[in-house]
C-alpha cells in the first residue's frame, strides 16, 4: 500500500500487518457478537410477549415473521457492534460517555479504521467502490453469459433474478457514492480551500456504514436472496424470500450514509470556503456536488420510508401494500420520489467532473459558467416533480400523465445548458487529448445519446410501448455508465496523480478508453434495437428471434468488461512498479486549488489558508492565478499558478 506513504509523518515503529487489520477484525467480531445479542433480545421480547419465539407459521404473505423479526433486531445490534469495533468506540462514543477520546493511527493503518482526514476517507470510498463496481460488473458478465442464447440453462431463473437484483442495487450504490464519496470527499474541501470537511467524524461514519451495506447484500443470499430487483416493488418484496429484509435493512443504512454525507457537503461548501472564494469562483465540480448533496439530504428519506414500510409489512404485520387496504402504488410513488432525484445524485457530479476536465484540458474558461450553475440548480428544483414518469403504465390516474410528461421534458432545458457549456468549452480550445480528456469527451458523446433517448421515454405514447424493455435498459446505461462512469474514469485519471503522487500510464489509459468507449457503445446501442423488437427487462430468457442480437451484445459486453482489467493493471502497475513516473504538483497545468499543493497534498492540505483572487478557469485571460497563499507563504514550486 504505497499510496498511504507520502504526505504523512513517518511512523515511529513499523506495525505488523495484522495490527493494521485489528480495527476491522474487531469490528467483525463485535458484529457477530452484536448479532447474537440482537437475536437474543428479539427472542426474549417474543417470549415476554407470550409467543413462541421460533414460531414457523407463515403469515398471510407466506413469510415467516418470527425469523425476520429476529434477523432485523440482530442486524441492528450487529451494525452498532461493527461501528464500535471498527473505531467509533475510541474516536466517538468514549467522548459521549465523558472519557478521553483516543487518537487514530497516522501511518498506513489509518486507511483501515476511523479516520478524520477527508483525503483518507476519499481513498477509502474510492477503493471500496472500485471493488463493488468490479463485483457488480462480474454480475453483469454472468447475466450476459446467461443471455447469450435463448433458453440458456446456465443459470436457473432464481439465480438469474438474484444476480440481476444484486447487480442493480450494487451499481446504484456505486453510482450514488463513487464520485461523491471518493472524489467529492477528497477534492471538495481542497478545491474550496478548506482544511477538512465540516464534520470529519460524521464523514467517517458515512463511509464505515458502507461495509455493512455490502456485507448484508451478500449475507442476504443465505436467507434466499431477493429477486425483486433494485426497485423492490411490493407486494413481491413483501412475499418473497427472507433475503429481502436484509436488502431493505442494508439500503436503509446506505440511505443514512448518503444523508449524512449530503449534510456534510452542504455545510462544508456553505461555511468553509476560503477567503475570496465567492460563489462565482467555486469550481463547477464543487457546484455539482453541492447540488447532488441537496438532493441526497432531502430526498433519500423517502427511499428509507418506502423500505421501512415494506419491512413493517413483513415483520410487524402492517398493511401498507398487502391485505385489504394495501396500496402497491403508494410504494411506487414514495420510491420514485427519491429514486428519480437519485439519478441526478448519480449524474450531477458526473456533469461537474466532465466540465471540470474539459475546461482545464481545453485550456479555456468554462463556457457559460453561470448558466451551467443555473442548470444544476434548475435540475435540483425540477427533480422533485418528475417522479411519476416512471409510472406512466402503473395504473395511476390518467390525469397525472400529462403533467408529468410536461415536467419531465422541462428537464431537457437545464440539461441542454450543460451541453452548451461543454461544447462551448471545447470550441476553439487547445484540446490536450490525455486519457482524462478522452473520457470527458466520451461522456459528452454518450450522454447525448442517453439524453435524446430519454425524450422517447418521457413521452407517454412511446413510453407505453418502450417501458420496461431493453430500450430503457440501454437508455439508463447510457446515462449512468456512459455518463457517470465515464466521468468517474475521467476523474480517476485526472486526479490519481494528485491522490497518490504517481502517474498512470497514458498508453494503458488510452487502450482502456478506446476499448471501453467502443464496446460500451457496441453493447448498449443494440439494446435499443432489442427493446424495440420486444425484449423486456429483467428476464432470464427471451424469444428465439432475438438470439443474434443478444449474442452480439454479450460478446461486446465481455470485451467491455475486459477493459476494466486494463484499468486495474494500469493502477496496480502505477502503484507497485518502481518505474512508474512520479507526479509533480501540477501535471496537467490546471488552475484549481488542489494543483497548487504537492502530490499528494499535505495532511493539513495547505501550508496556510489560501486566498482566492481569481476565477478557477482564467485560461487565456492574463496571468492572474486562481489563488495565492497568504502570510505564511508557500514555497515557489508549490504555487505554480
Amino acid at each position, binding site marked *: 500500500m504505497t499510496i498511504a506513504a507520502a504526505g504523512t509523518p513517518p511512523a515511529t515503529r513499523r506495525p505488523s500487518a495484522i495490527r493494521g487489520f485489528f480495527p476491522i477484525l474487531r469490528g467483525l467480531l463485535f458484529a457477530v457478537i452484536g448479532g447474537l445479542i440482537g437475536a437474543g433480545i428479539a427472542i426474549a421480547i417474543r417470549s415476554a410477549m407470550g409467543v413462541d419465539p421460533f414460531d414457523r407459521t407463515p403469515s398471510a404473505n*407466506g413469510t415467516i415473521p418470527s425469523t425476520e423479526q429476529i434477523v432485523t433486531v440482530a442486524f441492528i445490534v450487529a451494525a452498532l457492534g461493527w461501528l464500535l469495533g471498527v473505531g467509533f468506540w475510541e474516536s466517538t462514543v468514549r467522548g459521549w460517555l465523558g472519557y478521553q477520546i483516543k487518537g487514530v493511527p497516522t501511518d498506513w493503518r489509518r486507511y483501515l479504521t476511523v479516520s478524520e482526514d477527508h483525503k483518507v476517507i476519499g481513498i477509502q470510498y474510492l477503493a471500496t467502490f472500485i471493488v463493488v463496481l468490479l463485483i457488480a460488473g462480474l454480475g453483469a458478465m454472468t447475466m450476459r453469459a446467461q443471455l447469450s442464447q*435463448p433458453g440458456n440453462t446456465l443459470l436457473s*431463473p432464481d439465480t438469474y*433474478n438474484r444476480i440481476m437484483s444484486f447487480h442493480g442495487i450494487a451499481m446504484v450504490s456505486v453510482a450514488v457514492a463513487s464520485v461523491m464519496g471518493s472524489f467529492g470527499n477528497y477534492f471538495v474541501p481542497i478545491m474550496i480551500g478548506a482544511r477538512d470537511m465540516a464534520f470529519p467524524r460524521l464523514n467517517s461514519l458515512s463511509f464505515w456504514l458502507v461495509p455493512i451495506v455490502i456485507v448484508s447484500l451478500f449475507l442476504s443470499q443465505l436467507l434466499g436472496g431477493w*429477486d425483486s*430487483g433494485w*426497485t423492490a416493488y*411490493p*407486494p*413481491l418484496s413483501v412475499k*418473497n424470500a427472507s433475503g429481502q429484509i436484509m436488502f431493505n435493512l442494508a439500503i436503509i443504512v446506505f440511505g443514512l450514509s448518503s444523508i449524512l454525507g449530503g449534510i456534510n457537503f452542504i455545510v462544508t461548501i456553505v461555511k468553509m470556503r476560503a477567503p475570496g472564494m465567492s460563489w462565482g469562483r467555486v469550481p463547477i465540480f464543487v457546484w455539482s456536488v453541492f447540488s447532488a448533496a441537496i438532493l441526497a439530504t432531502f430526498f433519500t428519506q423517502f427511499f428509507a420510508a418506502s423500505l421501512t414500510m415494506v419491512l413493517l409489512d413483513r415483520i410487524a404485520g402492517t398493511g401498507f401494500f*398487502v391485505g385489504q387496504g*394495501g396500496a402497491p*402504488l403508494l410504494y411506487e410513488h414514495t420510491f420514485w420520489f427519491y429514486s428519480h432525484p437519485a439519478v441526478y445524485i448519480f449524474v450531477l457530479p458526473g456533469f461537474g467532473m466532465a466540465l471540470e476536465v474539459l475546461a482545464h484540458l481545453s485550456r*479555456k*474558461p468554462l*463556457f*457559460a459558467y453561470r448558466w451551467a450553475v443555473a442548470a444544476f440548480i434548475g435540475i435540483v428544483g425540477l427533480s422533485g416533480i418528475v417522479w411519476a414518469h416512471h409510472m406512466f*403504465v402503473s*395504473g395511476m390516474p390518467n390525469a397525472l*400523465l*400529462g403533467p408529468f*410528461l*410536461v415536467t419531465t*421534458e*422541462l428537464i*431537457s*432545458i437545464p440539461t*441542454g*445548458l450543460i451541453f*452548451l*457549456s461543454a461544447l462551448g468549452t*471545447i470550441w*476553439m*480550445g*487547445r*484540446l*490536450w*487529448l490525455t486519457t482524462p480528456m478522452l473520457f470527458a*469527451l466520451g461522456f459528452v458523446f454518450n450522454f*447525448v445519446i442517453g439524453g*435524446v433517448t430519454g*425524450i*422517447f421515454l*418521457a*413521452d407517454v*405514447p*412511446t413510453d*407505453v410501448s418502450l*417501458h*420496461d424493455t431493453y430500450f430503457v435498459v440501454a437508455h439508463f446505461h447510457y446515462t449512468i455508465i456512459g455518463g457517470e462512469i465515464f466521468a468517474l474514469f475521467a476523474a480517476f485519471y485526472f486526479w490519481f496523480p494528485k491522490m497518490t503522487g504517481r502517474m498512470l500510464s497514458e498508453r494503458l489509459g488510452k487502450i482502456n478508453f478506446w476499448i471501453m468507449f467502443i464496446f460500451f457503445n457496441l453493447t448498449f446501442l443494440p439494446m435499443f434495437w432489442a427493446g*424495440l*423488437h*420486444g425484449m*423486456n*427487462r429483467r*428476464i432470464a430468457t427471451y*424469444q428465439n428471434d432475438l438470439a443474434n442480437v443478444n449474442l452480439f451484445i454479450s460478446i461486446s459486453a465481455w470485451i467491455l468488461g475486459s477493459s476494466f482489467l486494463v484499468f486495474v493493471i494500469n493502477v496496480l502497475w502505477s502503484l507497485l512498479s518502481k518505474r512508474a513516473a512520479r507526479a509533480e504538483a501540477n501535471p496537467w497545468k490546471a488552475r484549481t486549488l488542489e494543483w497548487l499543493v504537492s502530490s499528494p497534498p499535505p495532511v493539513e492540505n495547505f501550508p496556510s489558508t489560501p486566498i482566492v483572487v481569481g476565477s478557477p478557469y*482564467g485560461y*487565456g485571460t492574463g496571468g492572474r492565478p486562481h489563488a495565492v497563499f497568504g502570510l505564511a507563504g508557500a514555497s515557489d514550486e508549490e504555487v505554480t499558478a
Partner: protein
Amino acid sequence: MRRHIAIVGLVWLVLTFAGLILAQVAFEPGTFSDKGQMIDDTFRTLLIMSVPVFTFVIAILGYSVFAFRHKGQPEGDGVPLSGRGRLPLAWFVVTSAMALGVMVYPGLTELPKVVHLDAQPDVIVRIQGQQWRWSVQYPQTGAKSNSELVLPVNRKIGFEITSIDVIHSVWVPAFRMRIDAVPGLTTYMSFTPTATGDYGTDSGLRLQCSQLCGLNHATMQMPVKVVTDAEFATWLAANGGGQPSGPSGGGQPVAIEATAGAATDGFATKTLDAKAGTPITFTFTNDDPGTVHNLAVTADGKTYATDFKPGPATMTVDVPALPAGTYPFLCQAHPTTMTGTLTVK
C-alpha cells in the same frame, strides 16, 4: 472562427441529412393494432425531431476534437470565450422552445389518443395475472382460457386487468400497449387489433409479463391470436360455458408425489421417465399437509406448470410431445430444493 463555424455547419447539415435518411429505416417489426400505429408514428416523429439535435452535438464535438486537438501539452491557452452575453440566452430560448414543442407535439396531442378508453368496447376481456401465469375471461360470453388470448380483428377491445398476488404488467409487443396488473386495483386499456396473426408467425403476439414478478417472470407469457369474427365465435364456443381449459388428459400418464417435508427433502421421486413423441399428462399429488407446491416442467424454453395448491391435493398439467432427451422439473415454490429430471426416451 468563421471558417470553423462554416465547416461545422456543413458537417451538421450532412450528418442531419444522413440521419434523416437513416430515420426512415423500419426500426420496429410491424404492429397489429390501431394504437400501435399511433405509437410507431409518434416514435418516428420523435426520431426525426431528435436527429438534428443529435447531429448538432456530434458535429461540434467531432469537429472540435479533430480541429483543435494537440498531441502533447498545448502551448498557451485557447481563445478565452467566457460564454456571457447573448449566445447562452439564445441557446436557452431555442432549447426551451424545442422542449415546449416536443411537449405539445407529439407529447400532449398524442397522449389522450393513446390512453383513451372506449366507453363501449365490442369485446370485453378480463385478464388476471398471478405468479406466473395469465388467465383470460370473456364476461360477455363466459368463455375462459388459461392457454391463449384470442381477439377478433377490427373490433374495439376493452381490457379489465387485475392481479391476485404481486404486480404484473400486461404487454403485447405487437400491439405496443401495456398496463400494469396491480393487486387490489383494476386497470384498463383499450385498442383495436388491425391484422390477423398468431404467435407462431410473429413472436410479438404474446401476452408477456413486463413487470418483474419473481421466479418465472421471464416465461410468464401467453400466446396471442388475432382472428376473424367467424373464427373468434368458434373459439368462444369451444371455450365457452365456463369450461376451463384445464387438464384434458389423454397423454401418457406420469405420476409424481410430494410428501410431508418436501420443501426440504424434495419430491418423493427425483427422476421421471416418459416416451418420446407422445403428449404427456403429469399428475402431481401433493400430500404435504398445508404446504403449497406445484410441478413445473421446462422444455423448449417453455414452462408447463400445474396450479399451486396446499396438500392434500392433486393437480395435472399437459405437456405436448417431446423429443428424446432430459428435461428439468421443479416445484416453483421451492425451486432450489424440489427439483428433478424427466428422461424422455
